[in-house]
């Protein structure tokens, strides 16, 4: 751009003769000489000395004239002020871009923020204020910010000792400040800059962890917490659903076998039973509907077709009933479940060895004519029906998770969340500790 206008004007300090670069010509009213700290009036073409100082100027963290890009816009540092409020110091760099105006780069306790003047007035009061649809909670009230040192150029008349009354409101990541002097009320909004962002923009090594945290500094675990709570809830839901589903089990095989009336040992091989997971719990559920005053021995052997490895389990189904002086009684169960703890994957055959038994009450001899239920003594359940009684068998896969596993998973899900919550609470408590309002800065989003 050959016809580009010059960006700066050089002038010499009327006190020390040092060459000063005026970077916001047309806007700037005051320049504090960077060599001798004298305050100059540059509002008129003729530079005028306002206050003479002969000091070695402060060494700035970011030298005047340094450029950096924030939010996609390039900024140049043109002025610097040190301010304090009842012993709490901070520093502010005035940033300028001829096309975008001014911004502020504010540093306190090693944490940085980018501020801008607002042309709209937030609405609300001490209960909280709103601007651009965002709600801010009160944090500091009735502070007094005093300028303690100044270097570079400013668009108003600035000098050491200038003071304004300040009030601040915060929301995570942002702060609203109101400054009142005898002439006007001005509002500004600043955004907390993560250490990496300020370091990349202006090459300053920011302290990533100012402590106590800045009033508007978002809790570092906040993004983690937001995600973690959602993930933990989802995981918990999945775990519960999974646990509910796996207790029901998946049927691998089901069928029935006849029980011989003579009580001989019987054997039947059923299958195949496909086990797909590396390890699983398998349950065999047997049900003998006709069982009465008798028992069925059930021995199961699962045999892997590939390598003939076998696993055994057994469980008898037994059921007794009768009548005595207290009335009818019954005990036992027509069903029986047998569990295999951890079966490796493979194709299995189930060998069932079983035997139906009838129970003969020794106290009731067949010849005892006087005994109640003498005729029952002769009723053998194995012979009761037209067809032979059956044992219904069902082989189910029971998933991996027992209750121990369930609680371990629960712990693994909740532990990091708990640690993060404790850290978050500590951070928030330290952050709010400095507020003039108890319970200020409550996060309600």
């Amino acid at each position, binding site marked *: *751009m050959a*016809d*580009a*206008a*010059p*960006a*700066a*004007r050089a002038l010499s300090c009327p006190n020390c003769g040092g060459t000063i670069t005026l*970077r*916001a*010509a*047309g*806007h700037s*009213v005051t320049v504090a000489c960077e060599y001798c700290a004298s305050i100059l009036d540059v*509002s*008129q*073409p003729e530079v005028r000395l306002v206050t003479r100082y002969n000091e070695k100027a402060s060494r700035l963290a970011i030298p005047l004239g340094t450029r950096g890009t924030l939010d996609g816009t*390039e900024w140049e540092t043109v002025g610097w002020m040190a301010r304090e409020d009842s012993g709490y110091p901070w520093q502010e760099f005035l940033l*300028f*871009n*001829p*096309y*975008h*105006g*001014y911004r502020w780069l504010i540093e306190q306790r090693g944490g940085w923020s980018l501020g801008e*003047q607002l*042309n*709209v*007035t*937030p*609405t609300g009061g001490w209960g909280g204020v709103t601007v651009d649809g965002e709600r801010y909670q009160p944090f500091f009230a009735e502070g007094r910010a005093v300028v303690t040192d100044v270097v570079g150029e400013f*668009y*108003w*008349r600035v000098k050491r000792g200038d003071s304004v009354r300040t009030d601040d409101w915060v929301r995570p990541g942002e702060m609203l400040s109101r400054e009142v002097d005898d*002439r*006007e009320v001005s509002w500004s909004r600043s955004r907390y800059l993560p250490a990496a962002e300020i370091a990349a923009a202006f090459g300053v090594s920011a302290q990533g962890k100012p402590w106590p945290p800045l009033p508007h500094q978002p809790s570092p675990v906040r993004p983690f917490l937001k995600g973690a709570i959602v993930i933990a809830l989802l995981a918990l839901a999945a775990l519960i659903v999974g646990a509910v589903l796996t207790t029901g089990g998946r049927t691998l095989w089901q069928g029935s076998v006849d029980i011989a009336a003579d009580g001989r040992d019987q054997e039947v091989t059923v299958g195949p039973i496909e086990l797909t997971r590396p390890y699983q719990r398998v349950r065999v559920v047997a049900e003998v509907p006709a069982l009465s005053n008798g028992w069925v021995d059930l021995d199961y052997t699962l045999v892997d077709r590939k390598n003939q490895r076998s696993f055994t389990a057994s469980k008898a189904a037994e059921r007794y009933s009768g009548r005595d002086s207290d009335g009818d009684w019954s005990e036992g169960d027509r069903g029986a479940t047998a569990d295999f703890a951890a079966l490796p994957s493979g194709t299995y055959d189930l060998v069932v060895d079983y035997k139906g038994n009838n129970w003969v009450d020794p106290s009731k001899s067949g010849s005892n004519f006087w005994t109640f239920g003498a005729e029952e003594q002769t009723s053998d359940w194995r012979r009761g029906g037209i067809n032979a009684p059956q044992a219904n068998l069902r082989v189910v896969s029971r998933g991996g998770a027992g209750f121990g596993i369930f609680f371990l998973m629960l712990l693994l899900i909740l532990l990091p969340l708990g640690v993060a919550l404790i850290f978050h609470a500590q951070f928030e408590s330290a952050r709010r500790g400095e507020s003039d309002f108890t319970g200020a800065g409550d996060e309600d989003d």
Partner: protein
Amino acid sequence: MLTLDCPNCGAPVTFRSASLPNRVCDHCRSMLVRSDAGVGVAGQEAALPFDVSPIQIGTRGRFAGASFEVIGRVRWSWTDGSWNEWLCLFEGGRHGWLGEAMGDFMMTFERPLAEIGSAELDRIARGAPAIPGRKAEIDDEELTIADAREVSCIAAEGELPFTALPGWTIYSVDLKAGSGRAASLQREGNEAWFYDGRYVTLADLGATNLRAIEGWTVPRYG
């Protein structure tokens, strides 16, 4: 559009707007005034002091759906600084002012005070001092007087609706509302003018043909 020779230096000068009587000769900086009798010289304009304004004569943009071009400028000063008022000629012949102060921009349009009907403004227009902090109701919106001060013209360029010569001093009152609305009242003797508008950014205006400034990237809008 009308092109004439400058009566002072003979350089060609162009009047783009038929409704604007004043024009500063780009060559000799004479303040020219057009009338039925022809073009006369009303005075000598000062050189504009160096600034880094991104606006220049010829900058274009849009505001409230209408496109405009910057055709003139007055630079004003007060005890604590100075600022630019850029004259924008809108399509259809209307004009507005793009104020540029402390890196902020506001677009305002002249409105007759009688139409506003604000007792506070009428009082100030009749010569009363404006007191910062006091309110004025305009179109059912409460505006606050932010500033009141004597201001002087430093210099001017391009086409203008009035003769703005260096040293011309008027009384200027700025008003603001929480909504971003901005207004001003200017008073000279018994006469007062009211301007109403709001804060804008160059991005809002979709500004093009911005002034190139060494070492800075000109933003692309529009």
